[in-house]
């Protein structure tokens, strides 16, 4: 009868230890930052913002994995290549080899593409970390949004408004999202034109459709605002150039 073997602790592999530590650190710091809100958490003279933590941890993760890959992963990858890939390659005919090559290219391309979002997210957090509401800054062609919102909020009494936008994207759709629960209205002619005009920005006209008509005259929007008893906000190239008076 053999003596019972003493229990030995299972070895923890390096990548697991790195990842677990980073995840724990990440969660701990995020929990701390929640108490500070979006403006962050003071650490003496240093101000710790959520964006810095959320950017630093994945960066550290990537560095850790690269170090591990260089030290441990490379020999294993070589072994895997020798035992798995070459065996299949040698036993394959020309068509199958072509398919094998295509699958490797596809796989590597997929990994590269899968990393696009984390890379983009990281870039945003690094460049926008100090801004508490960065979503407002991502309006692509809608440069008018912050100006239009400010004009809308500063009017007295505060209320819904009719808009006329001469911008890269004249629909005012993203401004409507940010303005809600205040409502933006648009004259039907202006709205129909803005929806069609946005399709011309690629510079490739449709041979089967008539060209986009010129923009409707401004008096249509003014009449529409009058009819509804609302102000008319006229925004051009990101600047509010006129703010009509409220008509009773």
């Amino acid at each position: 009868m053999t003596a019972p073997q003493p229990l030995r602790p299972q070895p923890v592999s390096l990548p697991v230890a790195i990842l677990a530590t980073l995840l724990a650190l990440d969660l701990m710091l995020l929990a701390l930052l929640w108490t500070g809100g979006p403006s962050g958490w003071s650490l003496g003279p240093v101000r710790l913002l959520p964006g810095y933590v959320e950017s630093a941890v994945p960066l550290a993760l990537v560095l850790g994995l690269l170090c591990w890959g260089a030290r441990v992963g490379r020999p294993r990858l070589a072994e895997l290549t020798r035992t798995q890939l070459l065996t299949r390659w040698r036993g394959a005919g020309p068509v199958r080899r072509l398919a094998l090559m295509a699958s490797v290219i596809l796989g590597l391309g997929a990994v590269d593409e899968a990393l696009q979002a984390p890379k983009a997210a990281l870039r945003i957090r690094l460049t926008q970390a100090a801004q508490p509401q960065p979503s407002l800054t991502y309006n692509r062609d809608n440069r008018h949004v912050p100006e239009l919102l400010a004009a809308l909020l500063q009017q007295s009494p505060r209320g819904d408004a009719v808009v006329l936008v001469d911008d890269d994207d004249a629909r005012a759709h993203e401004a409507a999202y940010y303005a809600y629960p205040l409502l933006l209205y648009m004259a039907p002619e202006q709205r129909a034109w803005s929806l069609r005009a946005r399709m011309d920005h690629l510079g490739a006209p449709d041979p089967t459709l008539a060209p986009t008509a010129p923009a409707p005259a401004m008096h249509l929007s003014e009449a529409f605002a009058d009819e509804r008893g609302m102000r008319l906000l006229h925004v051009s190239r990101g600047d509010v150039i006129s703010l009509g008076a409220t008509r009773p």
Partner: protein
Amino acid sequence: MTATGTLLLLLLAVLVPAAGLGLLLLLRCCPREPWAALGLGTAAGLAALCLSLSLSLAWDGSFSPVLGMSVLVGLLPGLWLARTSLPRWPRPRGLGWVLLLGALLLAQTVASAPMRGYDAKAIYGIKAKALLHEGSVRGPLFTQRDVVHYHSDYPLGVPLVMATVGWLAGTDGSPERAAAATDGVSWSAAHDQVEAYVPFAVLWVLALVALVGGAIRRRGVTHPAALLLLLVMALPTALAMPFAAGRSWTWAGADLPLILLLTAVAQVALTLLRAPSPGRGLLLLLLCGAAVTVKNDAWLAFLSLGAALLLGALPRARLVTVGSVLLGALLGALLVKAGGRFGVGAPFDEQWLPAVLAATPASLALRAPLVLEWAGNTLSQRGLLLPLLGMAALAVPFGLAHRGPRRVLALFVWLHLLGCTALFLFSPNVVTWHVDTALPRLFAHAFGPGALLLADALITLWRRPSTLSPVPQLPPPR
């Protein structure tokens, strides 16, 4: 977002897959493979949430998050009643831990990005805000056609889920703070609850990866082929990335949940072909119904799937599958139509029928080269050309060469890609603009089901030479 709101959202992220698993167990169609169960469970949970929220909307036009939560909680006892049928969850070891922790960190990184993209704000976000703020579709946003607002013809599945997430998330801003706001940033902060949906949508990507990963593991791929597993699992994530990387789309749109639901539809339809059962038929019906409440584009996928079933499936099995898809689509259409009767449509929305009727052979011939040219441009710019080529060169020929479910899946992918391309010939919009903005999204709807086929093809391709024949049989589905 408040700390309480974050906690509630984490609970919801657990509740959705748990309720879905409960539903699968009650219907006796839970996959044995744990990853597949988790992926399909999440899709089923999403379907239950969308359908219950749409039901309330169809009944009296109201947004009722309590009903949605009640349905999810009501499905939980299924977990207990059928606990012996739950898949055994393996303890992650080695590479498994790396994948799991890596996935969590990547998800956290992606989720920390702000809500971006036109669709997320102007189409879905504003509707979600209105549902949350007004509590129904009877408010001015849905009933006054001159309010700046686009695509009033879209079903409200995603805005309903966004509003539910916003309802749970709460806000840091008080009404007093909102009243005092004079700039967009502070005003937005007081009304940004629905933006909490962006991190929440990570759940759909993880579920998609789990579905494809489960399909791979069911084929017996284990540690020696872990590298292959990693590469193939990256594919669905890669397909989802344009939605996250700011290339026109965002995670806060309808395409990601639709891809998840359509992948689950394809998975369940194929299982139903092999082993018909009432539970699977009902699950397929619910998934199809939910897909229609998420986006009208689901109809295109169902047309392709129906045609693929009729062309590729054996007559004995296809009747119940086609019937489930059809009934599910009708259920979804009924809910959408009933919910839509409270609002008004805007004359500015796309008018497809007149455009289709106005098309002539000459106009189609003029547009065809433009469609092909711009399809190539936009797919390349959005990083979708490689997955598409992989699908066309590896997966579809592989599927067509086999009889039964594989051929059905290949036909579905092929018909969907061809059909969507042809659709743009009849577009009511400037065709180059329309192809540039919409074609990759429509293509991506078939990539989830295509990834299942691609995984199958790659596993067969990379099998050890000594085991090339005979072809191992799939384990019997449950």
